[in-house]
């Protein structure tokens, strides 16, 4: 695994590697399009987990190079993928039955914005980039746990972690934890709580890049 990991850059690789560490053995996990899908590359080869992709597959395997690709076998982001032993194919009705009925333990998604109460916006920037919700509405609302992997700020340097979402929401109060290039931050009843900092980053730097009040966990802050 990991042919494309090298192209992620150190900061992004660190954050997806950190997110992979929290995946619970035995769980059913959906990894969203883009950066979230890279989390799989940092799971040990013998790690017991069932990866789901909403276009109709459980037992998703690693991405495959084009010369080995099966034209009928993609993930929800359109990447050519393989399967692991025991994989199953099904239609979109069955795929979302799995999501909505409580069988999905963890959804890892990307974000345009995350609010201090756990609201998520990731499907529409009105008049600019509106890809549509895809499966994200149901993944955000119905997975037992929702985590976000994202850069801490957008490409213009604006914070993505805010007091409130300014963009149309994907889900309300759904996010449990956010992994960024700067920090690991939990969403708590008291708002954002800084749990860990990325190597070389200070609490003040993280606070300055965050658009909402940031509590800091007691005790020495782990570094990832």
């Amino acid at each position, binding site marked *: 695994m990991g042919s494309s990991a090298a192209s992620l850059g150190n900061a992004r690789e660190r954050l997806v590697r950190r997110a992979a560490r929290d995946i619970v053995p035995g769980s059913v996990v959906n990894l969203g399009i883009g950066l979230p899908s890279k989390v799989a590359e940092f799971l040990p080869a013998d790690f017991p987990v069932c990866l789901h992709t909403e276009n109709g597959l459980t037992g998703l395997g690693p991405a495959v190079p084009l010369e080995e690709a099966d034209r009928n*076998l993609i993930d929800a982001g359109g990447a050519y993928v393989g399967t692991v032993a025991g994989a199953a194919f099904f239609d979109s009705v069955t795929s979302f039955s799995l999501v909505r009925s409580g069988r999905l333990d963890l959804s890892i998604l990307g974000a345009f914005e995350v609010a201090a109460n756990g609201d998520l916006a990731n499907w529409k920037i009105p008049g600019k980039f509106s890809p549509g919700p895809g499966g994200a509405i149901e993944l955000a609302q119905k997975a037992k746990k929702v985590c976000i992997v994202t850069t801490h700020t957008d490409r213009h340097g604006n914070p993505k972690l805010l007091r409130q979402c300014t963009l149309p929401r994907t889900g309300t109060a759904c996010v449990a934890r956010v992994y960024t290039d700067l920090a690991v931050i939990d969403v708590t009843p008291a708002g954002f709580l800084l749990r860990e900092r990325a190597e070389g980053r200070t609490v003040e730097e993280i606070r300055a890049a965050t658009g909402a009040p940031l509590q800091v966990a007691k005790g020495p802050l782990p570094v990832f």
Partner: protein
Amino acid sequence: MPLPDKLEGLESAVARIPDGAVLLVGGFGVPGTPFTLLRELERQGQQQLTLIRNDANEPGTGIDRLLRSGQVRRLVTSHIGLNAHAIERMNEGSLDVEFCAQGILAERIRAGGAGIPAILTDVGLGTELAAGKTIVEVEGRPLVLEMALRADVALVHAATADPFGNLTYAATARNFNPPMAMAADRVVAETESLVALGDLSAENVETPGSFVDAVVPLSALTEDYGIVCR
């Protein structure tokens, strides 16, 4: 008592689609997209179509060709992020797009195919997707009323079919094809492989032929169906 033969030529199968038709179009990205039926629809030029389809394909392929030829008035979909042209058309107002949560899109189609007029769900409550929809309170819970989707014609892509229209699908080329193959007044299935009646194991049939009206065998797979180098 042989089962009826529903084999039909490409041109005549597509010619039954009138202007203004509502169409279900199978596929999720490339896999399961009925590219040959769509190319013929482009050639015949039916106008004012409403398409119900998970995504907008990628620029220059699949339903994007119908968007470019000006044949599509309205698109009901879940995600068009891989098609900048579709987003542009939506933003400039020349294409009416209704977004639907992906699984609810599937479930609305399933309901249409199952003879159920509408479904109730909490999916999308508190988001823009529920705006303007009827909210029904059931046992104290607010739920969104989502209307079933049924079409005049469904265009689906099968891996294997027999002349009666029993269908099987390949890998992730299933996606929306099985529910769509149940949810239209007329169901047209293009198939990569045609086998004789009895050659498909009855235990392996995924769409029973009684839902299907026309079987169009593909003589060759065009490059539309191939690996996409992005």
